[in-house]
């Protein structure tokens, strides 16, 4: 159900290209936004529960008379969302008001555009670019502009620190992320996400699904380097130095409240979905079933894709509630001195592998 199919379908009713284009974009954009909101709500709830369980707590619970937060606290995130929406939207007196108000939306746009190219199943993808992988990586960088805007416009030293750290971090980690995703691109020989997933059909080594991660040792390592870089790009622990709450209070989000802050939150979780989606599409076979040849059709694709994405998001949460946080220079150390050499080596290795084994 891409935009293209919608446009083609509208074309059967007559020739009105501009209107049909707008209609198609809106019709596919609204579900995308719902996906984003739903993802944030579910992810926040799961994150709360996961963190609580890891810490020997039980997290939000709604018991007793009345409807506190639903059974097992299921309505907690809904209540939180309502709270955030009705909260006062404070804008600091000495801030750059225009940029301050703009910043959340720029970040939102970055996440939203990235989501447009995520292949939820073989047909369920808003736009199927021929350079999809490249597009997601490129669009992901838009959020840096928003973050720097937010940090600068807040006129707060903490925000500025957070923004600068964030910019340095995201720009640096794009390099290992890009270098890692080159491995599947080299193997499949395409930048199109659907073709990339199609390439991972069948089996490898006799019994394993032919996912790129299992294809050869280099791509196995490449998955982990990509995943680590992806975590860093989404500013999550152990790379959450831009919003390190024990150092920078809340980093670039310090001055934000209410709805604008909720937008940041939404984008953060959407970004997690996007990078996990890219990792799944590039390395874990996308919407392909883990049992080659079985349950591989129709809605199963969505199920497998979301299942794998959820697994990766869970691992991100798992990291967050287990690890301490790195320091700025250590973060750069990991990026430039560990990840980039490894990814370079990987590209080389995959090239050799392709040369020898086809």
């Amino acid at each position: 159900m891409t935009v293209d199919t919608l446009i083609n379908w509208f074309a059967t009713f007559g020739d009105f290209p501009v209107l049909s284009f707008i209609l198609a974009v809106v019709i596919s954009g609204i579900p995308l936004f719902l996906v984003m909101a739903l993802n944030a709500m579910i992810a926040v709830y799961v994150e709360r529960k996961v963190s609580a369980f890891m810490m020997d707590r039980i997290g939000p619970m709604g018991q007793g008379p009345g409807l506190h937060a639903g059974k097992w606290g299921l309505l907690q995130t809904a209540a939180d969302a309502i709270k955030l929406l009705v909260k006062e939207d404070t804008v600091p007196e000495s801030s750059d008001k225009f940029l301050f108000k703009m910043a959340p939306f720029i970040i939102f746009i970055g996440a939203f555009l990235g989501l447009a190219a995520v292949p939820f199943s073989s047909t369920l993808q808003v736009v199927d670019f021929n350079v999809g992988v490249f597009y997601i990586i490129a669009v992901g960088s838009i959020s840096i502009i928003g973050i720097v805007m937010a940090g600068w416009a807040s006129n707060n030293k903490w925000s500025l620190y957070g923004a600068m750290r964030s910019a340095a971090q995201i720009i640096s980690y794009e390099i290992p992320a890009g270098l890692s995703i080159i491995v599947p691109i080299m193997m499949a020989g395409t930048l199109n996400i659907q073709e990339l997933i199609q390439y991972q059909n069948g089996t490898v080594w006799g019994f394993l699904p032919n996912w790129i991660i299992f294809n050869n040792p280099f791509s196995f390592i490449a998955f982990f380097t990509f995943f680590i870089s992806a975590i860093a790009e989404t500013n999550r622990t152990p790379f959450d130095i831009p919003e390190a709450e024990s150092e920078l209070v809340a980093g670039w989000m310090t001055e934000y409240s209410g709805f604008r802050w909720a937008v940041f939150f939404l984008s953060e979780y959407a970004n997690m979905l996007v990078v996990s989606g890219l990792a799944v599409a590039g390395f874990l076979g996308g919407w392909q079933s883990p049992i080659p040849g079985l349950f591989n059709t129709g809605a199963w694709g969505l199920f497998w894709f979301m299942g794998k994405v959820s697994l990766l998001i869970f691992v991100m949460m798992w990291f967050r509630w287990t690890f301490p946080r790195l320091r700025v220079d250590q973060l750069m150390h990991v990026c430039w001195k560990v990840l980039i050499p490894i990814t370079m080596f990987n590209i080389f290795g995959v090239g050799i592998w392709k040369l020898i084994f086809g």
Partner: protein
Amino acid sequence: MSRYFLNIYETLSTLLTGMRITWTHMINIKRDNVTLQYPEERWPRPERNIGFEHENYNIIRSRLHVDIDDCIGCLKCERACPVDCIKIDTIKAPVRGEDIPNMKHTGETTNGTKKAMVVSRFTIDMSECCYCNLCAYPCPEECIFMVGGPNSSKHPIDYEFSEFDRTDLIYQFAKKLNSEQKDSLQTPIPEAKA
């Protein structure tokens, strides 16, 4: 060079150890959970028979309560209080150890001590109280105590006393005397200074 790979190995192994621990805690949450759903569940409060013979010494640090019928107005608790949250006024009783029915004043405590004073005011400001329990020890009649625990027979426990107004936390224990009743007694004795 080997240092470089050793570092990577150490990092991965220690991180995985940590992840294993949080994972075990997560899947064993039913066993490990320590949260209590507060309004529905509560911690058991320690109630114990303390190890020396003074059985009525209190072990709960909760709201202060005064059995005003037992109070002889000796001001010991007032003097012991480090933050001066107890305030007592007394008026000399006409006859030592006799009931004054119209003021609901009893002449004798439950221990049999004859009272020489009518307590006209006994207020405790629980918002100032620091729960040090110093007032409970010197009381000769054991009439000031923190509620609950071994004293639960005298007064039920009250951990969760909260009010909307600060002044509501000033507890009045003395029996209300109007000005005529006060005048009918002797002139108030100025309170002793600590």
